[in-house]
């Protein structure tokens, strides 16, 4: 299997086969990230496509320091963020009040039986603002200050959105877990 350095070199030389090799190796993982950041499959496809174009176009800036997967992951997340920024005025978070804070997750946490695909489905059901803040905070590890600057919201709004996202997620996880148990118990 060719080394990643050689593949990058080939990509920089414009070798289409090396570009395809790079894509085939990493597309599945990055597509999962795209799905995680988008509410529908078309948007996820667009993010993946634009993300890979950026990866190829900026390969010469990759300094071979740190993880190449991490570098590609950041580019895809930034692409998702740009997409979100360009659209966020179109979204409306109108279901906040439907989930009162006191109806949060059950006291006993039992997430057994939940698979990655279930988690992906749950996270994609979140309203875009909550999904973006939850992804950036809980999955990527950004601070509220950083998220505020990235998404162009205040730190307070970021905290509030995260809190709402967690409530929704906990509720949905419980629902999924209960459903799964019921199915298993017949």
């Amino acid at each position, binding site marked *: 299997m060719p080394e990643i350095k050689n593949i990058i070199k080939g990509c920089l030389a414009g070798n289409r086969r090396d570009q395809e090799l790079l894509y085939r190796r990493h597309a599945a993982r990055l*597509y*999962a990230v795209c799905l995680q950041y988008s509410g529908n499959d078309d948007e996820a496809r667009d993010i993946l496509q634009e993300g*890979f174009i950026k990866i*190829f176009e900026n390969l010469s800036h990759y300094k071979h320091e740190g993880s190449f997967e991490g570098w590609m992951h950041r580019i895809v997340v930034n692409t998702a963020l740009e997409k979100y920024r360009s659209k966020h005025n179109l979204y409306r978070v109108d279901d906040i009040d439907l989930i009162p804070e006191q109806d949060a997750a059950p006291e006993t946490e039992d997430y057994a039986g939940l698979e990655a695909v279930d988690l992906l489905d749950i996270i994609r059901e979140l309203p875009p603002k909550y999904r973006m803040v939850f992804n950036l905070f*809980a999955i990527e590890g950004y601070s509220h*200050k950083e998220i505020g600057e990235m998404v162009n919201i205040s730190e307070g709004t970021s905290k509030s959105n995260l809190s709402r996202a967690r409530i929704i997620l906990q509720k949905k996880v419980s629902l999924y877990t209960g459903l799964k148990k019921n199915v298993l118990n017949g």
Partner: protein
Amino acid sequence: MVNKQADIDLLFRNGLKDFEVLPPAEVWDHIRPAIRKKQQPVILLRSAALIAVLFSLGFLAYQMSRLSEPAQNPFLSFDQGPIRPRALPSDPVLEKLMPASDRQTSPAMQDQISLPEPEAELNNEEYISQPGPDIFTEISNLNFRSNIITPSGIRSVRITDYSKVNSASGIGDLNSPAIDEIKGKTDRWSLTAMASPTYYMRPDLASSDMADQVSSPEQSRISYSGGLSFSYKISKKLSIQSGLYYSSIGNKVDDIRSYAGFSRFDYTKGDHNFEVMTTSGPIFTSNPDVFLADIGGDRVVTKYTNDVFDPGKANLSYINSSLFQNFSYLEMPVFVRYKLIDKSLDFNLVGGLSYNLLINNSVHAMIDGSKYDVGKTAGLNSFMVSSSFGMGMEYSLSEKISLNLEPTFRYYLNPFSNIQSSSARPYSFGVFSGLSYRF
């Protein structure tokens, strides 16, 4: 509650880690990247420099090849046929003046003297290079064969040492002594007006997250330099040059959002509301009406952080997402110019130092094609010294006026800024062109 929150975060973080989903097959077909090479401007610049050097060397080679060809003298005919040993025609007066061994003409002499005997030819290899009497002077004094030898032609060439004659090419250095004396006695001074687009570069700062964050969104702008200079010819090949130039350079700092209309919200005291970290030093805002925010980093230092002030909610007018730093210098070069080739197209090596005085330091944003003042860059060195090296070409348009072209590389001996973190020394490349007047 906190634990529950952490649990849900961990559940998703760990659950989605390494999760893979195969994308639809058609996605790959739509990925057609245009590969961008790193530091494209530098590559273009290097190419331009290479072309300039190749151009210079090409002309140099052309001039050299012209020098090695047999010289044509309009006054005297030149035997282009094969050269074979030949004695000078027997002349009783000449025989007295020259020893028998010297009575063979050099090829250089053959260029100057055309003799009627076509069969009399000289062997180039057998040319005698002994110091001897001033043959031509004496010949002209003798006035022999005055119908063949043009006196003015003889007087213009004065060879007193045969060893100066190039035995390989068969010609003497026709540019030396007398011709140059006649040519060079007059025009020792020249006044030159030159200008150049200049591209500035700066070596990478020390590798750190902050350095990367600061330097990656910055681009050098193509700058201009121009002015007047005097040069004085010390000798045939050497001259010194000085004058006064104006140069304007700058940086474009991307991903900094600027907004107007902030003054009505500014209730704090202090000399500036915002600082922006750049490779040339921090930008301090002087305009109280401007609000700055970094799009994706921590380059803006301010009391008005995102949690304190939201420009969107305050309804500020968005200006642009780039800032432009401008620095203007008054420059006094002291250069030495060495003439490699002295023909109608001269080639010079130029090198020396320039003393630069900072006369303008400003930062602005652009809105609808007009400048919006932001502030200035702090900590800049007001006096800088740079070293330059260039290769100049000078083409004589007339006896007094010539056209100049000088690809020049410049390296600054002290940094732009006296702030430790911005201490990179820039370098630049420009192709100066202009006209010079000799007097």
